[in-house]
């Protein structure tokens, strides 16, 4: 991260957050460094992520006490939700929101693909979120860099970690959602499938949800928020924008394409790769509070799981 005092350009983070006075390094990693802000996520994408994570938190916090029913925190959490039956109802409501969010994304993505002048760009190449052989090479290169055996891999619009997170949602919705629906309507599904599959579904649902919880609240949180060069927060998904320097750090191939963007007019509409106005104080505050709340609750949940597993 660069020193904020030396290169203060028109749209820099220091201006945005400081409102006239010099501000220390912003909490939000996406607001650090110089260069104009760039639109990275559309409003539609930010809403989808917001709904996905909110429903995910509710699903985890209503499901964990059942999965670890003998843990001391389980009755406390159930009391918080107003009893097992009510927690079950809330769990199903959150599931409906998550599945709706997922479907909204799939339909939106299909529409975007249909309308795109060059759909192949979205399906393959460095603009695409689809995992490709290049990502395996990046993964290996990342480990080489870890051990000082080579330079840091250069990512395009999406790193292999982001692609994994994205694909994991598909896998998770199918596996956890599918087994969840089976357990929600067992009488209906039992018209076609034998009852012991509900035993299988119970295990699949619980273990896969545990994996998702453990992954999101440790690996995802570290990758995007907690690693030393981003700590304590990266709110790019909440505000939708990041500085050009951030883009150079995280997505150098994409950032190279953005050369000369400083001269282009600022777009108040969130359109990919256009210069953006700095996030307002209110939106920064909201993103910070929301982000801290999320990782606070997430790490507390990991603590609860470890408590239940280890004792």
């Amino acid at each position: 991260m660069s020193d904020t005092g030396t290169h203060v350009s028109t749209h820099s983070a220091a201006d945005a957050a400081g409102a006239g006075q010099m501000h220390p390094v912003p909490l939000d990693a996406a607001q650090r460094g110089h260069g104009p802000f760039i639109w990275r996520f559309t409003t539609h994408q930010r809403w989808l992520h917001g709904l996905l994570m909110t429903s995910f938190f509710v699903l985890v916090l209503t499901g964990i006490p059942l999965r670890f029913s003998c843990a001391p925190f389980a009755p406390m959490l159930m009391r918080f939700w107003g009893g097992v039956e009510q927690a079950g109802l809330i769990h199903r409501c959150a599931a409906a929101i998550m599945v709706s969010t997922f479907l909204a994304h799939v339909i939106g993505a299909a529409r975007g693909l249909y309308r795109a002048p060059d759909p192949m760009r979205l399906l393959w190449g460095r603009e695409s979120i689809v995992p490709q052989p290049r990502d395996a090479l990046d993964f290996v290169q990342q480990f080489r860099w870890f051990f000082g055996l080579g330079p840091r891999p250069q990512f395009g619009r999406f790193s292999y970690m982001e692609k994994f997170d994205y694909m994991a949602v598909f896998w998770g919705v199918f596996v956890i959602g599918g087994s969840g629906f089976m357990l929600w309507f067992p009488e209906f599904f039992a018209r076609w499938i034998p009852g012991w599959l509900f035993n299988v579904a119970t295990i699949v649902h619980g273990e896969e949800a545990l994996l998702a919880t453990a992954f999101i609240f440790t690996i995802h949180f570290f990758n995007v928020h907690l690693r030393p060069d981003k700590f304590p927060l990266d709110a790019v998904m909440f505000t939708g924008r990041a500085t050009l320097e951030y883009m150079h750090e995280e997505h150098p191939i994409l950032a190279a394409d953005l050369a000369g963007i400083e001269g282009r007019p600022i777009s108040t509409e969130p359109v990919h790769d256009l210069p953006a106005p700095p996030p307002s104080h209110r939106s920064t505050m909201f993103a910070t509070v929301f982000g801290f709340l999320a990782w606070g609750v997430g790490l507390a949940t990991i603590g609860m799981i470890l408590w239940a597993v280890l004792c």
Partner: protein
Amino acid sequence: MRPAQLLGLLASLTIVHLAPARLRAQGLECDRCHAELELLRQRTGSMARAEELLTPEAVLRGSAHGKLACTACHDGITQSPHALPVVTRRCASCHPAADSVWGGSVHAQVRDRASVGCPACHGVHDVASRQQLRTPAGRERGNARCTACHAGQQLPATDPHAGRALCAGCHGSHDIRGPELIGSAMHPLRQLATCGACHDSVAAVWRGDVHADTLRKLLAAGVLDEDPDALPGCTACHGAHGAPRGAAMARASVGRCAACHERFAEIYYESYHGQAVRLGSQAAATCADCHGAHGIRPSAEPPARTARARRVATCGACHPEAGARFVAYAAHPEPMNRERNPWVFFTFWAMNALLVGAMGLWALHTGIWWIRLVLDQRKARADQPRNAPN
């Protein structure tokens, strides 16, 4: 004589005739002293002693001994006032059977006989009759005698028996023993008779229960020194004091069954039913919801509620649309048991392999990355002074 005077005489004669027999016996007028507290106090010089000796005739009249003369018990007295000390006959002289039975009771082993003798429970002049003990007031008075010594053993108000049963109704009276002793009315081997005295329809069903088989087998084998807590009598499930009622009993059954059926309880808690019940669900199935209560049979026997042929009906109580496929669900799955639940076993291992594998790989990725970044930052900080522009 004027009519009013005649009426008064008639009234006083009637009162004399209908009034309770006063404390008298064979020409003695006991009540001349024993109904007068102040006189007794003067004679004995002690108010406490006077109160002991005071015998209001209403108390005696209302007791089981109401028709007896004073000298029936205090038989050494021939004149009034009488000489001291007064000898009182032992209760056993009229009640030899009760005395003999009492001799085998736990109370007979108490060294301080005065605290556990007949009067400790029955009282002195206010000995209750059988009929009186059946009234609510009589029950309350009788139970108060027990709890006077056995403090803290009162039935909680939530107990279904509170205010309805005498302590002696369950524990026995003259033959009372610790519930751990064979022969106690509360020993599991005798609970069928004791509890069944009131709950006869339940007892009739329970005679066909698998737990009754167990008790019969133990009796036949002469295994009588079994720990009574391990014997499946009525209290094994219902508990003793503070027994839950109705729906609460069905919820509580899980813990009670688990006390003996540990393995099944453990795997039941692995199922949704068990997890929800453990966290207070009022809807999810308990042991009793599937296995029944007093007519439990092993699932291998056709009459069992959990027998293959009856499962659609049993599960259907909560899952009305349950069909033949639905009931192939394993209510007690054992993920570690490959023979019993092969699919559950393989799923469990596959899912755990995925969990450990995925988390392990990413933890490695994250951990090394962390170290790399920390080392880089340290290096940058160390390099900074040399490279600084000024």
